């Protein structure tokens, strides 16, 4: 995955080296006279604001340490808080499922060693993954070229041997994210419908016993869902709505999937604005609703009030969190696709990078 980052950086730099033409602009086509008068009166304000912005930029370049990041705006990667101890972590789940280039594998969660062996058909690549919290099952989504999401269920007979069956299909969509309920009966999948000129995510909940599907739809404009997680009650789903590109701010929502209705934006946004917090992740930690705030996990009331610190010492650039059935053992993936486990205050880096991982 770091290779992909490097590949894109190289390709981008090469492309920018060839794309150096400033566009031809017809400046005379811009104004009407009414516009010009209004602009002339507001120009002083814009100039002052621009000068202020310029001073801020200069300060940011000259003294990056003042604001805790480099001149490019990237936060420095955190140093691992702990190195793996010989024998590995001795608490929490013993294994997790992980997505690799070759497929899905079971991983020893004490040592980070893969048990090896892909359990997906060759030529198909899973895009998202959710484990059943007990190391026995994994659900992975595949998007077919004809735009159909297939959800495969992998059951491990031994750590080295799994059997696959198809759990569900969702037609006319591409998969974005997946979460399995703690009791293992429900799958929540955020999907992008194909064929529409939109990137709005729909939310689909699949009952794995009856194979019935319920679908929630959302905003008419660009937005998407992230950080899908089930609450311990197996009915409430938390997620973050990201009104990307169209204004507004990220905000977490709670959806009661047992209630009637098909609009996932019907629940009111919580008062907390997670875009200010920075990481934009909500989770269920130790059975309660919580939010990642920098390197800490804080309690979050259902009214959106950020409360006490529940846990400390997380990496600073976490982009996804997966909690086990107790809600106290976390798998954390950073923006550089580095994987950590977090157990009651102990952060342990796991030795390999995985595309995705789940208890």
């Amino acid at each position, binding site marked *: 995955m770091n290779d992909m980052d490097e590949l*894109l950086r190289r390709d981008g730099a090469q492309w*920018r080296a060839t794309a150096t033409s400033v*566009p031809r*602009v*017809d400046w005379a086509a811009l104004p009407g006279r009414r516009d010009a008068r209004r602009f*002339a009166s507001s120009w002083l304000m814009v100039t002052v604001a621009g000068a202020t912005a310029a001073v801020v930029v200069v300060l940011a370049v000259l003294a990056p340490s003042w604001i805790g990041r480099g001149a*490019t705006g990237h936060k420095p990667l955190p140093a691992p808080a702990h190195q793996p101890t010989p024998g590995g972590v001795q608490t929490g789940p013993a294994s997790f499922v992980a997505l690799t280039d070759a497929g899905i594998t079971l991983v020893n969660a004490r040592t980070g060693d893969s048990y090896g062996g892909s359990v997906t058909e060759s030529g198909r690549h899973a895009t998202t993954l959710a484990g059943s919290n007990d190391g026995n099952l994994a659900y992975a989504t595949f998007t077919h070229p004809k735009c159909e999401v297939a959800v495969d269920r992998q059951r491990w007979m031994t750590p080295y041997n799994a059997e696959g069956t198809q759990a569900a299909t969702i037609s006319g969509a591409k998969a974005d994210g997946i979460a399995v309920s703690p009791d293992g009966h429900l799958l929540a999948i955020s999907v992008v419908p194909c064929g529409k000129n939109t990137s709005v995510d729909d939310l689909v909940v699949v009952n794995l016993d009856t194979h019935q599907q319920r679908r929630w739809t959302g905003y008419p404009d660009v937005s*998407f869902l992230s950080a899908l997680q089930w609450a311990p009650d197996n009915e409430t789903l938390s997620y973050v709505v990201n009104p990307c590109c169209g204004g507004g701010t990220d905000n977490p929502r709670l959806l009661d999937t047992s209630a009637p209705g098909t609009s996932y934006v019907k629940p009111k946004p919580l008062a907390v604005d997670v875009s200010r917090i920075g990481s934009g992740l909500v989770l269920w930690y130790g059975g309660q609703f919580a939010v990642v705030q920098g390197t800490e996990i804080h309690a979050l009331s259902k009214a959106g009030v950020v409360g006490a610190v529940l846990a400390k010492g997380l990496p600073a650039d976490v982009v996804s969190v997966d909690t086990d059935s107790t809600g106290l053992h976390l798998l954390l993936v950073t*923006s550089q696709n580095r994987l950590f486990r977090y157990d009651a205050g102990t952060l342990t880096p796991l030795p390999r990078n995985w595309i995705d991982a789940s208890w």
Partner: protein
Amino acid sequence: MTADAGDAHAVGDFREWVQPHLLAMARLATRLTSADDSDDVVQEALVRAWRRRESYDASRGSAQSWLLAIVADRCRRHRTRARHPEPAELLDIASAPASDVDRSLDIERAMSRLSRRQRLAVELHYYVGLSVAEAAAVMRCSEGTVKSTLSDARKRLLPALQEVS
């Protein structure tokens, strides 16, 4: 000052204000539409920026992020009108070594598998060259959201790249 002279003066100020960001605007327009359509999209974006310039608030973001957000919006509308589902080929084949051409074409094809927001994040960060913070300002979402979107995009690109190559 006459009205015409006032126009010219105001446009001159606006031009001076926009000029440092024209290249970034053109790059984003090229990435999200095509080299042929880029000038038109930038022109449309500038007309819109001119008309909405009073809504610009420096406390909410830089001029560049405001202008690039308008370009991204114009690109979306342009593709809708022109029924161009995906941006056209972007590589300057004549000036690039053959292996680079192949690699870039593969990446281009793989990027067609990304969702719109993932593509926008990748284009802004890797191809226009914005930092995560700057890309977040353009996309009007948090830095964390941009990071996770980029992470998801890289995850999706890897198998797609293997398939197309």
